[in-house]
Every structure is written in C-alpha cells, then in structure tokens.
C-alpha cells in the first residue's frame, strides 16, 4: 500500500499541534498510573485528550506530539489510532451524532432515526454538513439497548429517542457554542 498525502494526513504544511498546559498536566497524571517502563500504556487515554484539543480529530502533528510525549515511535501511535473507532483521522463536525444501529436498537427503530437525521441535515452516515456543525455516524452497539433508540454526542447519551426528541436535540446543538467531546465532564 502506498501513502497518499491528503490535507488531512499531510506532515508538511499541516497545522502544528501542541497540548495545552492543562492537557499536558492531565496527561502526566495519566502516565503516573502505570509503571515508568510501560509508559506506552497511557497511549489511548492520552490520544483522547489530544483529540479533544485538536477539534475532535487526530491530525498527524497531534499523533506525533503524543509519540514524543510518551517516548515511542510515531508508527506505534498511528497503528493504534487507526484501530479504534473513536479516533477520527479526518476533521469532523462540531457535534458528532453517533446513532447506534445494532440489532437491539434496530428492533426499536434506530434506522428511522438515522434516516430522519440524514434527511433533516442533508447528509448520509459518515458525512459532515457543509457548515461544519454536524457529523452523522451509524455506530455499533453503544451499550444502551434497554433505552433504545439512542444516540451519543460527545460524552452524553441521549436515550429513548423519538423523532420529536431528535429535532429538539438538533436545534439545541445548533444554538450551542461548545463542541461536544468524549472527554467532557457532564452531569450524569
């Protein structure tokens, strides 16, 4: 396979990245949980922080910064970032709507929810709206089968969805200023 440079995975000319002081402190606290010689164990939790600080996706400079922080090879970060579905390798919308569509949710109407959001926002699963506000994703089981259908946006689970509830949510997000991240501290 050949590496094909795109604006999203370029090394040259890419937007530089460095962790904020608060983010760096959090990373150091995470690294302290593991024996010093196994610092690499902190990789996945730290990638979450880097992703949050890089507008919800992992650019090559962001991954390289994590590699340097942990003292590991770049490839060790790339191979992990590409394996896990929560890491975005290209830019995403401000609000990523992940609608679970595995069987228990399907039985309770998840496909209708996805179709409705898609129609309303004019996008298919996997796409982002032109204004950069929303990304729609069809997710595999999110562990919320008893409260299906549901969608996840950032850290928050929105459960027992109906078409009306979805419309309300979209309006709420549209007027919200903050990006929704997995690492957000939310009232639960």
């Amino acid at each position, binding site marked *: 396979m050949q590496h094909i440079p795109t604006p999203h995975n370029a090394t040259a000319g890419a937007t530089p990245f460095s962790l904020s002081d608060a983010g760096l402190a959090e990373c150091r606290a995470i690294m302290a*949980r593991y*024996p010093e010689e*196994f610092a*690499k*164990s*902190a*990789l*996945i*939790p730290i*990638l*979450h922080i880097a992703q949050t600080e890089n507008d919800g996706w992992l650019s090559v400079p962001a991954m390289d910064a994590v590699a340097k922080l*942990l003292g*590991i090879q770049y490839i*060790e970060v790339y*191979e*992990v970032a590409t*394996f*896990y*579905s*929560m*890491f975005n390798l290209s830019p995403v919308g401000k609000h990523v709507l992940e609608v679970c*569509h*595995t*069987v*228990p949710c*399907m*039985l*309770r109407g998840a*496909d209708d929810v996805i179709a409705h959001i898609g129609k309303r926002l004019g996008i298919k699963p996997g796409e982002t709206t032109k204004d950069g506000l929303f990304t729609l994703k069809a997710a*595999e*089981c*999110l*562990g*919320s*089968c*008893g*409260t*299906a259908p549901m969608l*996840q946006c950032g*850290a*928050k*689970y929105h459960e027992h969805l109906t078409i009306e509830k979805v419309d309300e949510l979209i309006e709420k997000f549209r007027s919200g200023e903050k990006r929704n991240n*997995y*690492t*957000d*501290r*939310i009232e*639960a």
Partner: protein
Amino acid sequence: MGRQLLLEHINKPGIRGLEAYRANGGYRSVEKALKTMTPEAVLEEVKKSGLRGRGGAGFPTGMKWSFLAKPEGVPRYLVVNADESEPGTFKDRYLMERIPHLLIEGIVPSCFAMGANTCYIYIRGEYFYVARILEQAIAEAYAAGWLGKNILGSGFDLDVYVHVGAGAYICGEETALLESLEGKRGNPRIKPPFPAVKGLWQRPTVVNNVETICAVVPIINDGGEEYAKIGIGKSTGTKLISASGHINKPGVYEIELGVPVEEFINSDAYCGGISGGRPLKACIPGGSSVPILPAELLYRTAKFEMRLMTYESLSDGGFQTGSMLGSGGFYVMNDTTCIVRATWNHSRFYHHESCGQCSPCREGTGWMEKILYRFEHGLARTDDIDLLWDVQRRIEGNTICPFGDAAAWPVAASIRHFRHEFEYHATHPTKVKDPKHCEKEPIPYPEKSYAG
C-alpha cells in the same frame, strides 16, 4: 422477584456517593475480609460459592483465581473487564453508573485474595462519563481509607485506576484487552500462556467482568455456601439480565438463576410481556454471539422440559435446539422482525469489529455481510444459503480467539431455525426490497417438530 444481592440498594437516593453507600451496609465485606480472613479463606469462599464468570464464558471464578502464578518479586494484577460491548448487554454500565462503590468494594477482597496490589478497570471509551463517575468514587474511597496504603491497618496496599478504551468490541476478549491496556492494537494473543501466568506486561493477571467482581461482595458478607444455595445445580447465585427489544419493560433485572424463561418474559416483575401484544417470534438470550432461539424452543426445550434461565438449561440441546446464557444480553423479537435483516445487521457488526488478525475471520465476516446484504436487498439466489453456511462453517474454530465462533454462530443458528425466511427473500426479491416488509406481512412459519 428473587433475592437482590447486587441491585438491592441501587435506587436509594445518593447511593452513588460513599456516605449513602456506607449507610446501606457498604464496605462491610472489606472489613470482614481484611480483619478476620486470610487470602486463602477469601479464595475458599469464592470457590464454595460456585460463582461463574458473568462476562459470557461462565468459567468458575474461584478456579480462575487459583491458577494465578505467584513468582517471587513479580507484581500481580487484577484487571476488571468493563469493556461491555456485546450487543444486548448493558448491565455493567447500569452497575457502574448507579452504584460505583459496589465494584470498588468487590475489588478490595478480590485483590486481597490474589495478593494483587494494583487493579485496572478497563472501561470502554464510549462510557467516558461512567469512567468519571468511577474516578470520583475511587477518590472518595481513597479519602476514607478503603483504598491506598495499609487498608484498615491490615498491611494490605491497593491502588485502583480507571483506563478508558476507544471503541473496539474485540477488547472485551481478555488478551485483546490486555494488549489494549498496554497501549497497542486490540489483537488477541495466542493462549497459552494464559493471562494467569503471563498477562499484563507479561506478569500474572486475572481478568474478571464487572458483575463477577461485584458478586464477591455478597459472597464475602454472607459466605460462599449461602450464595450457592441460590440457583440450580452449577448455576449458582443471581445474574443480571439486560432485557431489551420488543418487550414492555426493557431494563436490567437481577434474577435468581433458575427462573423459567416464560416467566421472565411475561411476568410483570421482569419484562412484562411482548410489546404491542404481538406474538413472540424469537429471542437471543445471551448477547449477540449466542444462537437465536425460535419461539417454540424458547419456553420448552426439544425434550419438552421447561426452559430455565440457567447456564445448563439454556444450552440444553446443544446448538441444534439450544443456545447459551452468555453475558445475559436478552433481546426479544416479535413477529414483525425480519430475521434475515437481523442476521445481516449482526454480521455487519462482526465485520466491523473483527480485528483482522486471522484470515478466516477477517475475510469470512466480510463475505457473510456481503451475502446477507444480497439476501436483505432481494439480490440473492436460493443456493446462496448453502454458500453462507459454507462460509460460516469455515470460520468457527479456525481463529485465535472466540470472536470467529461468535461471528459464525448467529448466522448458523438463523439458517438452522429460519431457513424458510432466507428462501422467501431469495424467491420474493421485489417484496423484500422494502425494509419494512415483515412489519406489513410477517413471513409464515412452517410446521416443524423438534421432538425426537
């Protein structure tokens, strides 16, 4: 409703906090274990309880702990598997979100029995907010002296950390989980060596499900023998069942093992019957990986005995006419459900989640999804059923980890019990183009007898 060993206090106000948890008898098991028992005695109680792993495989927990290698000067670890990703299962999230201290309480005597001074809770990344709840509870437990150095003056030290994953079903497999915890891709390891000998960072490790560790609390409090009195035969104690799908009351229920399946579905204490008053069509009783059971094999076994919620009864008849208790992800389908669509959905899930390490699984799950896509969209021929059967049969047993089996079994069981629906899809291509064809006109079930 049977005895509620884990969920008894779950709806009490403020139970997420240490104060309310302690006021409801929390952390008694830690006092009892650390002040009055030896590690061997704790292990003995767990063995006597007959507790079996609640994550899906049902392996005896006491035996797993006793396999732990104890070389001099090498740290040992307990890793709690909170990577709950099996479709249909949501019991661990319920426990950790509502009553996080129960898990932390269970960790202390468990680690004491193993001689482990560090515990990692590996939680799936999607549960980030639950990880925050756990971290908060752990901080409270440290402050109150239930964790940390020299707990209760016993000389036993214990550190507990939460580790978030990033969305990979395969990381629920214990060796993939350990790889992921080491900061790598979640590729399962070849066993042996088992984690009990070479686990996290090649050191002796026990990996247990959240519910398993929580069950240690009542076992220590009341004694293993008392726990073993609940249930039937080798299915002892209580089990959390995540009920979902076409039922009136979806949710997490704690049952005494041995409740009849018929009662579980229809009783108001549990699922409260099939939603919309429609007839039952099929049920997946233990998470997406276990074989589907059609209605006529669900309440009664092929021998016409009452089917019970136990490890043995649910698997009675093997895969021909039985299923498995698995992780307790119990989802029910009414007569409007298209089994072909559900099977396609399952195979898409497994294709998406295959780690890609073993060819039979990486390629086979993709082929199954493609063939099932053809069925669902009216593009298949009748002989594609045999092709599908052939593909699934070549995955099972030919992979490093049980994921391959888990991907093959649902497909095999769907063909075994609902072959007529696949035939219908192949012969009625224009009708099945409508995804809701089954809701308008359920596919008739042919007369069939499993007796004899």
